Every structure is written in C-alpha cells, then in structure tokens.
C-alpha cells in the first residue's frame, strides 16, 4: 500500500492508500477508487489516427498552434500546476486563448469575486469551528463523497466535538442523496436562488418582505433559516453548480456573498465553492499570477485580456472564433453543449490526456500522458486553495503533462 493523494475531486484527500498490484485501496471513496484503478489508455501519440513518436506529435502540435490565427487552449483542471504554468506561457507565446474547465463550472463564482469579493475560509475552519453548515445547490455525497466526513458535516475539530454540535441545512431543487444528512432540507423552485437569497438578506437585515413565499419557499421557512443563520457562532455556506449553472449564475453567487457580508455584522460566516476537479483551482490561480486573470484570457494582441462573453471556450466555439484547439486533460466533446462541440469537428484539435474519451474521436493530434497522482507528481490546489503535492506511485513510459507542454513550448519557441 502506497501513501497517495487522490486526484479525482476538489477534496484532494491526502490520507488515502492504494496498492497498485492488487488494485485495492484504503480510505478511498467510490470515485477515488475508480480514479486509481487501471483502465484503458491511449496507447501511443497519434496524428490523424496514425501512431507516431512523442517528438513528432509535439512538432505537429507546435506547427498547428503557431500557424493558427486564434488557437484555443482549454482544459487544465486535471493536471498539475507545473504543466499549467507552461500552458499559460505557451498560450501567451502562440497568441492564443487560455480557458479552463471553470468556465463551464465555477467561473461564475470568480465573477462574483470581482463584484463583491469572497468572505471565505479553508476547509479546516469548517471542520474546527462551524456549528451551522449550509450546502446550497451542491450534492457532496455524490460529487465530493468524503467532504462531509473529512471537512464538514461529520468532521470533528477544535470547537466541534460531535455531529450533534452542528446543524446541517441542504438547499436544492431536488431531494439529492445529500439531503438525507441534513437537519433541514429546503426544496426550492429551479431558477429562484437569487430571489430567495435576496429575501434572506432582507430578513437578516430586519426588513419585512411583502411576498408570502419566494421561489416556492414559505416566508416562515425563510425567516426560520435567517434566524438560524444569525444565531450561528460560525457558519459556512458551501455552494455548488446548482447555483452557478442555473438561472442567475454569477448573480446568485454575488447575492450569496452579500448575504455573508451582512451576516458578518452579526456573527461569523464564510462561503466557499465546492470546486470539482482536483486542480481546477490551480487552473485559475496560476494564470492569475502569471497574467492577471483566472480564465477566458485572450493573448492575440500580445497581452492578456479577460472577457468571458468573448473568450470562454464555449463562446469561442459557438462563435466559430477559434481555428485550432488544444485540449489538456479534459473532455469538452462530452461536456460542452452540442452546438459548441460541432465547431470542434471543423478545426484541428490536439488532445493531451491519459484516457481515450469523446474528444479523442475528434482530435487530429493525440498525445497520451502519465496520470498525475499515480504516474507523475506535482502540486495541485485543493478546493479551498490549499496546495498539496500529488505523488508518483509507479513508473511509466508515458510523458508527464509537464514534460509534454514544456516540449511543445520549446518547439513553439524554435519557430518564433
């Protein structure tokens, strides 16, 4: 059994063990176990379906990126910081557009930070201090299975000695598996998060609201929740894609941040997103320090510019505004709206990934990579911004993402 750090979800559990020989693990959730298990791999680098060497694939990639008028370099959330940093510099050098999986996930939260900031805390503060935790539009038991036990609902710490010391609230449009662990489940009408949060803000502020119900929730229930929030010693809202991918998106998060700002005038509250991929936070942090922005960054004029309406991957594809695409460890062909996927069929696509997926089927250049956290090491950001080093457990013939992107960068520099 080797000590490992799990590279599936934003929990980045660092207490797991995995035996590569027997394929058995300890303390792994179902998602983590699946992550570590051996599975079908892309066998070799390929150009247009023909097996080639890594070097040939790298040269072809550089050629495509240098010649493209507006290449889109997308993905980055399932690889290590070291590869992302080269990826940013690569995008700058080829005058392309950098975007990462957040733009179809938690990027609305980034827009909310721009509007209002974020009063937050690390997962350890939830574990040690939170006597009220609200899961809003997220379903940790299915998306981050060990979150409740390690960090939130059931976690024990400095001030919280048992599950009884803490109240759990789940707010969602459907009764998710996570609703079962709640002391209070509030079912809301899809698309009304914003209005409900506005109502809560009013109630916390002491304003009466004229409506008898908001977003399918009776005023009394909202008043009770507002009271519960005000009387918490230390509360946390964890929010998920239920807020960011539905009507209101960034405005929902912004409104929730305003609620937390207000609550801090009475007691302590923080809010934090339940980030999905194991290094989706890094895919935003690194460009932020290298070039100033987290995602949807265009370099075509020699300097970075941020504009989600123009430079997010989905918008770039919908508008047919990119003439080449590099996909790093992601599967947009499976996870983007269909109309966006269609443009991928019209342009050269380069894929870097350990596993064959739907994007492989649309790719002109395929570069298989070592699996970070199993075959390659590097730093990653847990969902709360804490960096952990994922480990190399076994040797591999595959190149690491870091090496692949670095080699592409060097090949590009030779051409400039």
């Amino acid at each position: 059994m080797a000590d490992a750090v799990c590279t599936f979800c934003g929990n980045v559990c660092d207490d797991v063990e995995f035996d590569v020989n027997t394929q058995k693990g300890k303390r792994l959730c179902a998602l983590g176990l699946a992550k570590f298990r051996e599975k079908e791999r892309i066998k070799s680098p390929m150009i247009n379906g023909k097996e080639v060497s890594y070097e040939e694939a790298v040269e072809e990639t550089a050629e495509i990126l240098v010649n493209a008028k507006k290449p889109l370099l997308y993905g980055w959330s399932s690889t290590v910081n070291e590869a992302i940093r080269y990826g940013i510099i690569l995008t700058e050098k080829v005058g392309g557009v950098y975007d990462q999986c957040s733009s179809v996930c938690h990027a609305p939260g980034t827009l909310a930070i721009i509007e209002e900031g974020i009063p937050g805390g690390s997962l350890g503060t939830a574990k040690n201090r939170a006597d009220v935790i609200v899961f809003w539009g997220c379903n940790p038991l299915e998306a981050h299975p060990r979150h409740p036990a390690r960090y939130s609902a059931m976690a024990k710490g400095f001030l919280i000695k048992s599950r009884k010391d803490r109240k759990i609230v789940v707010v969602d449009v459907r009764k998710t598996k996570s609703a079962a662990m709640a002391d209070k489940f509030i079912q809301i009408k899809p698309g009304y998060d914003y209005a409900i949060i506005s109502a809560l803000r009013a109630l916390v502020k002491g304003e009466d609201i004229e409506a008898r119900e908001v977003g399918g929730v009776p005023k009394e229930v909202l008043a009770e929740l507002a009271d519960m929030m005000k009387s918490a010693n230390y509360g946390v809202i964890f929010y998920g894609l239920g807020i960011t991918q539905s009507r209101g998106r960034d405005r929902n998060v912004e409104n929730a941040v305003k609620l937390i700002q207000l609550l801090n005038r009475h007691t302590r509250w923080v809010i934090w997103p339940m980030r999905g991929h194991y290094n989706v936070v890094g895919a935003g942090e690194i460009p932020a320090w290298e070039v100033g922005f987290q995602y949807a960054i265009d370099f075509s004029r020699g300097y970075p510019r941020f504009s989600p309406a123009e430079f997010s991957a989905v918008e770039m594809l919908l508008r047919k505004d990119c003439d080449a695409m590099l996909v790093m460890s992601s599967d947009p062909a499976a996870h983007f709206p269909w109309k966006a996927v269609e443009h991928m069929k019209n342009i050269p696509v380069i894929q870097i990934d350990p596993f064959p997926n739907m994007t492989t089927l649309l790719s002109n250049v395929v570069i298989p990579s070592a699996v970070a956290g199993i075959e390659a090491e590097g730093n990653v950001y847990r969902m709360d911004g804490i960096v952990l080093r994922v480990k190399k457990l076994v040797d591999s013939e595959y190149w690491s993402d870091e090496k692949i992107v670095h080699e592409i960068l060097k090949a590009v520099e030779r051409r400039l």
Partner: protein
Amino acid sequence: MIEVEVITGRTIDQGKTVEEKFSEEYFNAVNYCEINEQDFKKLGLRDGDRVRVKTDFGEVVVYAKIGDVPEGVIFIPMGPYANRITSDDTDGTGMPRFKGIIGEIEKTDEPVKSVKQLLGVE
C-alpha cells in the same frame, strides 16, 4: 407529451466512470433521465422505456427512470446525452445554462444512441 424543466448534474456513477467513456458502465451512468413518479405514470412509462427529451437546443433519446424530483422537473446526469439539450447560450457569462432548461418529453420507441453515434463518428 408533457412540459418539463430539465436539470443536469453529477452522479456518483457518472463520476466513477468518467475516465472510461467507452465503457458500458459509463453509457449506463449517463443515458437516462429521472422523472417524477406522477409524470412517469402520466406518460404511461414502464421500467426500461425510453423518452425523447426536446428543448430549444436539441433533442435526445434516453432511458426513463423514476427519481426523487418534483413534478415537472427531470434530471439527466451530466454528459453527452444531457448536453444534446442543454442551453448553449451563456447569456454573456461564458457559462452555458446546464440547469433549468424548459423542454418537453414524450415516450418513444427509438433506441438510445451509443456515445459514438451521438457524436456522429460511428
């Protein structure tokens, strides 16, 4: 045919198989929709039946299951089937709307496509 609001999202099975897109397990994890029991009955559905889900953005055939969703709401696990019908309009945010898309569903005899058929490469 009934009008529904479509939401999509993660499930544990979708998560477990997401790195094995061509496996039977992944196919089974993402090719269905959950429907409220009343709506299920209204549509005259039985276990193993298929429905066509149609929105302004496309249509897709998936298996129908009874799920813990409110009446008038259906849930499809995130993945290629869901994304045939999710909103591609980002409303200027860069984020397509994956949840809360108005559409309609009806029973159908058409088969559920494989992921490759769905992509149009097979």
